[in-house]
């Protein structure tokens, strides 16, 4: 089936079988390998992307469902090629990642939270990443990273979303 995917502000026409998940389409049809395939049945959260501004699991959507939806992957978080976004920087600085496998999902979950709430409590942060499994950090530094990113967002006057600035 011919489907038009709008990813990180760019529209791509892709030919997919109906059974191809959004996750596989992003990785294999769009070449965007930042979104990670973990459990592929909606438990681990590694494949989380933004669809119309909401964090969702890309392994639980089929690409054909996503016509005309605005999809943002971790690649869309950076202001420019080779740079890191504010949330990503915070993850680096607080050691919010070790192996890095869960990180794209965590960053997207954090972004979905911070778009709605730039003064999250630790409870809000934990709730936002409750669907994302990390087997390295023990989550403490991830919560710290999101707290730091929230503080920087509050104190900065740049656009929240890199794509909004485009």
């Amino acid at each position, binding site marked *: *089936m011919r489907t038009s995917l709008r990813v990180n502000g760019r529209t791509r026409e892709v030919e997919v*079988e*109906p*059974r191809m*998940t959004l996750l*596989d389409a992003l990785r294999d049809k769009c070449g965007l390998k930042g979104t990670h395939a973990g*459990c*592929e*049945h*909606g438990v681990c*959260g590694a494949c*989380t992307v933004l*669809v119309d501004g*909401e*964090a*969702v*699991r890309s*392994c*639980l*959507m*089929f690409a*054909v*469902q996503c016509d005309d939806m605005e999809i943002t992957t971790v690649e869309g978080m950076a202001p420019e090629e080779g740079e890191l976004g504010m949330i990503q920087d915070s993850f680096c600085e607080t050691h919010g990642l070790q192996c890095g496998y869960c990180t794209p999902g965590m960053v997207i*979950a954090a972004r*979905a*939270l911070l778009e709605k709430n730039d003064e999250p409590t630790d409870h809000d942060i934990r*709730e*936002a990443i*409750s*669907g994302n499994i990390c087997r390295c950090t023990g989550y403490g530094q991830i919560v710290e990273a999101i707290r730091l990113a929230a503080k920087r967002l509050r104190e900065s006057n740049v656009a929240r979303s890199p794509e909004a600035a485009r």
Partner: protein
Amino acid sequence: MKAAPFEYIRPASVEEARAALGADPDSRVLAGGQTLVPMLAMRLSRPSVLVDVSRLADLRGIEESGERVVIRAATRQAEALRSDLVRREVPLLAAALPHVGHPPTRARGTVGGSVAHGDPSAEISLAATVLGATIHFLSDEGEEEFAPEDFFFGPTVTAAPMGGLLTHVAFPKRPKGRVGAGFREVASRRGDYAFASAGAQVVLDGDGSCTEARLGIGSVGDAPVAVDVSELAGGTLSQQDIQAAVAEALEGLDCVDDLHATATYRRRAAARLAEQALAEARDAALEEGAQ
């Protein structure tokens, strides 16, 4: 972990959706997909056709209808959680919704999908059972309406008519008086499938005396069940009264053994959760009177 091939249809109207479902007995409704897609990935389900109803405007939205709050089937769980109408008029559902999955699954998962799937640990189904909501289908026979106790038979086994489309779930509005709701569950990780869950709603009069108490237990057996705690009416919902009523109501409760929890554990957990849910409901109702 890849689904078997299927045909994908995105109908433009409820009628078209109904026709597509009626035309092929192996077709399935795709709404939020948060339960169906994992089942497809694990090939526990191999439908020939998926009928995507998630964009049908006629299946989206929450509105008042007389003494009921109607939630259309493809309304996202996140939308129901954000709804002021639900918070005001169906407090037990509002208390249950934060326990439904995680933010990313609630952003896609639908209220109707959760009910139609018939998982015994589904929080929305438990709230519907406690409150006596009605579940509405459209099928070849026309419109059909089910009470929860006639709808949920066993794990993923429901009375849903062949080729039927769940259109909406109608929850009764809160009764008059001081109303409080409580919802408790225990799961391996917050938002995962619960091992035991309890939902309660109580109504108090001006003096703090109970005029109505409802309780339901989910996740322990084949389907959510409403249990009888009507003897609490007339009392003040003291801890002793609650414990006694719960002990009596849960006697003979059917609980299953599986790899997550034993039947004994589930029975004991259900009793504690039920007591906590009733106490939470009582405290919420008292607070409502204090305002």
